[in-house]
């Protein structure tokens, strides 16, 4: 039992942090994408712990890159078909009258969730997908469609789509996390995952994505806490640093505790995704997602309060992180939905009795 990051993992994390702190990372997104490909962030041998360490740093930097959708949403489906995710990619699953979330798509009592996008015998796909993350940026588009035997995952080249996928604006508060609509008007597609395996792959996609976003949330929280501590140490009022007031310092101490426990859960969930996939990893991921999301929102809110007046100005960068925190808080459901999922795992069915043991 050893929870310590290895020296390699620490170097990996620190290299990412260093790159993201450089202004080059905030520049042109094509160049940044080329950089991160070169840095190995899309390599297939990376474990989920290594990916989570990256996600944490991307959250810390509030990177706009569609890396998370490429690796988290599209990656498992591409890899299941022996392909490597190299280009910006995403997954299209939500439909207007069909499944809104991955959780709904996977819900056992409604397999497929009433999906209306279909695939024909010649492999062309037809229908409309909504709320597709990074729809306008993605080059490789993994689409979930209803085939004759159930849900299939197929690959569509976004450049072949007419009309092109649209950017319908931010899916929430964060403009760097846009979502859009994808019209599939009988466009050619390549098979990735057949109906008999799609349930497992979609579950793996959701597990991995939620684990990465939990780590990203911890990165957001860490950055906000660091800003708040810095401000509380340097800003003076009534003749002394404001951090000398327990009214300022104690919420930051509480926040530190919240962020560190969220970090423990995020690392543990990432480890669990690879080491113990199934109900144990699902619980680990849900717990990490709840704690990470709550920590990110709380950290930004406490930081804004610590900054006082300047905290809610546009010029103060805090609100960009707060927007990301809110996007995270509502991706594929809320923390209340995640707690409901945990409760079902803990309280319902035979496995419930043993659940608390892990």
């Amino acid at each position, binding site marked *: 039992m050893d929870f310590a990051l290895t020296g390699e993992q620490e170097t990996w994390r620190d290299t990412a942090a260093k790159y993201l702190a450089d202004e080059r990372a905030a520049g042109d997104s094509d160049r940044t994408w080329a950089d991160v490909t070169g840095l190995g962030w899309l390599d297939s041998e990376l474990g989920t712990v290594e990916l989570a360490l990256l996600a944490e740093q991307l959250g810390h930097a509030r990177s706009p890159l569609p890396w998370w959708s490429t690796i988290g949403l599209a990656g498992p489906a591409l890899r299941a078909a022996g392909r490597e995710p190299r280009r910006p990619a995403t997954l299209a699953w*939500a439909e207007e009258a069909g499944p*809104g979330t991955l959780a709904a798509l996977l819900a056992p009592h409604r397999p497929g969730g009433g999906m209306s996008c279909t695939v024909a015998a010649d492999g062309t796909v037809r229908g409309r997908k*909504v*709320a597709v993350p990074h729809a306008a940026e993605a080059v490789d588009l993994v689409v979930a469609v209803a085939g004759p035997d159930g849900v299939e995952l197929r690959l569509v080249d976004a450049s072949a789509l007419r009309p092109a996928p649209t950017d*319908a*604006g931010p*899916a*929430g*508060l964060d403009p760097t996390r846009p*979502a859009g609509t994808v019209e599939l008007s009988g466009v050619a597609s390549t098979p990735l995952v057949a109906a008999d395996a799609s349930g497992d792959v979609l579950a793996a996609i959701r597990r991995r994505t939620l684990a990465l976003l939990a780590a990203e949330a911890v990165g957001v929280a860490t950055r906000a806490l660091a800003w708040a501590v810095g401000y509380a140490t340097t800003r003076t*009022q*009534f003749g002394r640093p404001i951090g000398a*007031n*327990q*009214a*300022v310092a104690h919420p930051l101490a509480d926040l530190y505790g919240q962020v560190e426990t969220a970090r423990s859960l995020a690392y543990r969930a990432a480890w669990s995704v690879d080491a113990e996939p199934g109900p144990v990893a699902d619980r680990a991921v849900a717990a990490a997602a709840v704690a990470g999301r709550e920590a990110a929102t709380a950290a930004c*809110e406490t930081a*804004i*309060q610590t900054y*006082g*007046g300047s*905290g*809610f*100005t*546009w*010029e*103060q960068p*805090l*609100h960009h992180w*707060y927007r990301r925190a*809110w996007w995270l*808080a*509502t991706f594929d459901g*809320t923390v*209340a939905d995640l707690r409901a999922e945990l409760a079902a795992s803990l309280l319902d069915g035979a496995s419930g009795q043993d659940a608390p043991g892990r």
Partner: protein
Amino acid sequence: MDLRDSAEEAAFRAGLRDWLARSVPVTTGTAGAPARGRWDDVDAVRSFSAALHEAGYAGLTWPVEYGGRGLSPVHQAIYLEESARAEAGEHIGVIGLGMVGPTVIACGSPAQRAWYLPRILTGEIIFCQGFSEPEAGSDLSAVRTLARRDGDELVVTGRKVWSSYAHLADHCLLLARTDPDATRHRGLSCLLVDLRTPGVTVRPIRQMTGEAEFAEIEFDEVRVPLDAVVGEIGDGWRVAMTTLAHERGTFGFTLTARLEVAFRRLVATARARGRDTDPLVRDQIAARYVELEGLRWTNRRALAELRRTGTPGPETSVVKLRWSQAHQRLTALAVLLTADGRPDGWDRYWRREMLRSRANTIEGGTSQVLRNVIAERVLGLPRSY
């Protein structure tokens, strides 16, 4: 103790409600969601303000001799409740009517009263307040803006921030240091300054919502006549405290009435999204209702004390503190209710309201400072800061 309107109050309320139903312009945003921004259309605010004045609803509590109606704070409270429920806009001179006017009545010279008061009532003059400074923050006695005597004039240099709607205003009630050698709250003076005087620069402060409700005001050797001083030179602390006391008076009613509007919209949103049957959502809505009701009746209790003793009861001090938290919780809940990725206007509306609400625990006295005040002045605990 009788919580019903008196016959006279009921008549006032009925007349007002009737007038509001006829006079409030209808503005609706996307898909039934409210139009954004109370002050987006300044011309509409101006014309509604003129209508308010004409109908006799501007300066309700001002003495009749200064153009007011001479009514009780209860009438003011009824006005605030009803106009919020009708989703009516505020008079464009909200700071002039509620804070600067009463300060001029209490501390100003006859000439100041004669010139400013009627113009505040009609909306011809729009006031903002210039108290906060970048370095002073919550500590008003650390004000550094200097007003140097030069013959019959004061020459003002300094910078004010967080002035609400200063970019719409043409006048400012300014707190400045007239005696640079006196420390803390001594040596301050309050001035009535025309913002169109050379040397004044007003820059809107963009909030994290992307909008600008506040501005910073820079004074660079701005020459102000000596008769612009309210009260005596060096009397600024007392005058400023008078202004802030008026801010606290029935302001709780404004805040609570706004919260009630928000609560109604929350219920409408939960229904529109089909979330009103979710037990967790129902529990939260009920909790928000209890908070709203707690504020509503605490306001009325404080008002009774104000009417009996002339000063608001100590309960008043908790209203802003608890209102700000209640509003933040309400808007966060609403964002969660509309976070399912189906845009319908309400989602954008609530996200903007939620972001805006984060300022509630900071603006007009941070929650930390309010807790200090309650602990020390109401509970009598030893000074902790």
